[in-house]
């Protein structure tokens, strides 16, 4: 088949198998100092500190941030989230996504350069590598030299650091999902349960693979954001740009002194390429590999200072300013795209906070007894049994008052978890903050008062005797066929 199709086409249309993936050599980013490098350091160390310290914080005698999956409760400082609150999580994810849009529209890929976990952990791994193996030149030399005691020692130390750091990262990750102090003592006594151990190793492997091995290839080939971020860009978005009108033609060495009149400011030292963590040449224009870390800006500024030219040959700019437009910061911030993203973001955050504040302090689920729809008491009444699952979302011990509406002459028996408080009212036992209490109740009704197989009725649940906040839960009462 293939052969036939090829024969009918003109020669120049025959597709040639081209590998779209270049063989990627390891990139050794050169160390760089400057404004943006310091900013990135602050961001990287700050975020790492937040990640590693957060699980160790305590709040009201429990872990402050704990996504307790085994107990199906998420603790975030004073707030407890239940599976029923999944809506909040979804909303938070939407807010996070929109923030990404918002900041991308203003400042381009700041997320990539300063806050993405891929960048943060890669940076940490690069620092460790540099600490053991030395500068870029030393690293390249080491990788080229034959194996000897020195290379073995350095490579071993590097791997030891990387692997320990990865394992600690994995341990911390699992510590967000089950109490980290318990996990730590389990590990210390070599008695970790299967799954926590599995996920620790899994996450450690992922950290090692992403930050130690794959690095910029994650951004180049695997990251969806890198592919679609251009949709949020416009001519006013901040990008890292090389001023080609000033820099070209590039001249280096003796030429600069002899033919200075025609030469551009770029001395073609190649340092901007050496410092780039994704290994691109920014002088070729904006590329999707650029994570806007601004390492090349710092590097170029240093060189420009040395050769006595103005800084800013490579700088943060926008397409519009690069084309010569004079745009103020006000114009950059208050343009429709930013305003629309900003407005949606602000409404969502307001909605989220309002919903959190107005969240009811308790919740009730009514579960019917599964095994039988109804039974009979000794005195000939029909009996239906219900479990009222009372979820205390408040921060104090609470007792709940329940009244039953819609059944005539019903007789109520509390089986478990509370006491009767009059003919049609019940009181639950006190339930601790963040806990669930089950109140099991049987409702007995004379067959003569029911004229249908299924009679709808309601439980009205309140967290005070005065019945100020009341939740109405509907349920059904089953009787035998008349």
């Amino acid at each position, binding site marked *: 088949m293939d052969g036939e199709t090829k024969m009918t086409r003109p020669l120049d249309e025959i597709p040639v198998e081209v*590998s*779209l*993936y270049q*063989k*990627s*050599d*390891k990139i050794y980013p050169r160390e760089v100092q400057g404004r943006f490098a310091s900013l990135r350091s602050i961001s990287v160390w700050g975020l790492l500190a937040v990640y590693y310290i957060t699980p160790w914080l305590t709040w009201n005698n429990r872990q402050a941030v704990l996504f307790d*999956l*085994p107990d*199906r409760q998420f603790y975030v400082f004073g707030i407890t989230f239940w*599976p029923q609150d*999944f809506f909040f*999580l979804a909303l938070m994810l939407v807010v996070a996504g929109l923030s990404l849009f918002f900041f991308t529209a203003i400042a381009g890929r700041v997320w990539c350069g300063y806050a993405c976990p891929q960048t943060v952990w890669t940076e940490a791994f690069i620092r460790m590598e540099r600490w053991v193996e030395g500068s870029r030149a030393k690293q390249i030399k080491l*990788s080229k030299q034959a194996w000897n005691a020195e290379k073995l020692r350095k490579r071993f130390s590097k791997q030891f650091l990387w692997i320990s750091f990865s394992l600690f990262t994995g341990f911390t990750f699992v510590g967000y999902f089950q109490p980290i102090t318990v996990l730590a003592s389990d590990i210390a006594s070599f008695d970790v*349960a299967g*799954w*926590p151990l*599995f*996920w620790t190793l899994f996450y450690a492997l992922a950290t090692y693979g992403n930050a130690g*091995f*794959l690095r910029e*290839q*994650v951004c180049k*080939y*695997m990251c*969806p954001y890198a592919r679609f971020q251009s949709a949020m860009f416009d001519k006013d978005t901040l990008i890292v740009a090389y001023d080609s009108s000033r820099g070209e033609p590039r001249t280096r060495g003796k030429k600069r002194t002899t033919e200075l009149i025609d030469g551009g400011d770029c001395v073609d030292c190649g340092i901007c390429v050496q410092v780039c963590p994704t290994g691109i040449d920014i002088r070729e224009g904006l590329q999707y590999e650029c994570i806007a870390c601004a390492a090349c800006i710092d590097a170029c500024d240093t060189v420009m200072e040395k050769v006595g030219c103005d800084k800013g040959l490579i700088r943060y700019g926008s397409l519009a300013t690069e084309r010569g437009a004079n745009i103020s910061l006000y114009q950059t911030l208050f343009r429709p795209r930013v305003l629309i993203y900003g407005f949606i973001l602000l409404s969502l955050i307001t909605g989220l906070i309002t919903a959190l504040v107005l969240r009811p302090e308790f919740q009730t689920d009514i579960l019917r007894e599964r095994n039988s729809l109804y039974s009979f008491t000794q005195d000939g009444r029909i009996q239906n049994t219900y479990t009222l699952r009372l979820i205390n979302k408040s921060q104090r011990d609470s007792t709940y008052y329940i009244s039953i509406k819609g059944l005539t002459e019903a007789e109520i028996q509390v089986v478990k978890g509370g006491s009767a408080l009059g003919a049609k009212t019940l009181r639950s036992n006190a339930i601790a903050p963040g806990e669930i209490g089950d109140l099991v109740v049987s409702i007995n009704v004379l067959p003569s008062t029911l004229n249908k197989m299924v009679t709808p009725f309601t439980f009205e649940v309140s967290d005070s005797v005065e019945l100020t906040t009341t939740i109405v839960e509907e349920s059904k009462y089953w009787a035998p066929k008349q």
Partner: protein
Amino acid sequence: MTEQELSKTKLNIITAAWIGFLSASIATSLFFATFDPLTLVEIATFPVPMTRTTVYSLGFLCFWALLLVNTIVTLWMVKRR
């Protein structure tokens, strides 16, 4: 460095694994926010005593494996079309 080279196929699988990982996370959280593993275990066709952590973990791995197979087969078929 030869140790750093990745072939196209390997890169495809890694990409599929990563996107599948993200999707599986979403699927797992949606699914288990709706259904309590303990209830599922109770009413399962073949009831097996399992803890919540086990069910979450197996659930995630199953979602991931399915998505991975799905992506790789799709990639392969699109390429062979």
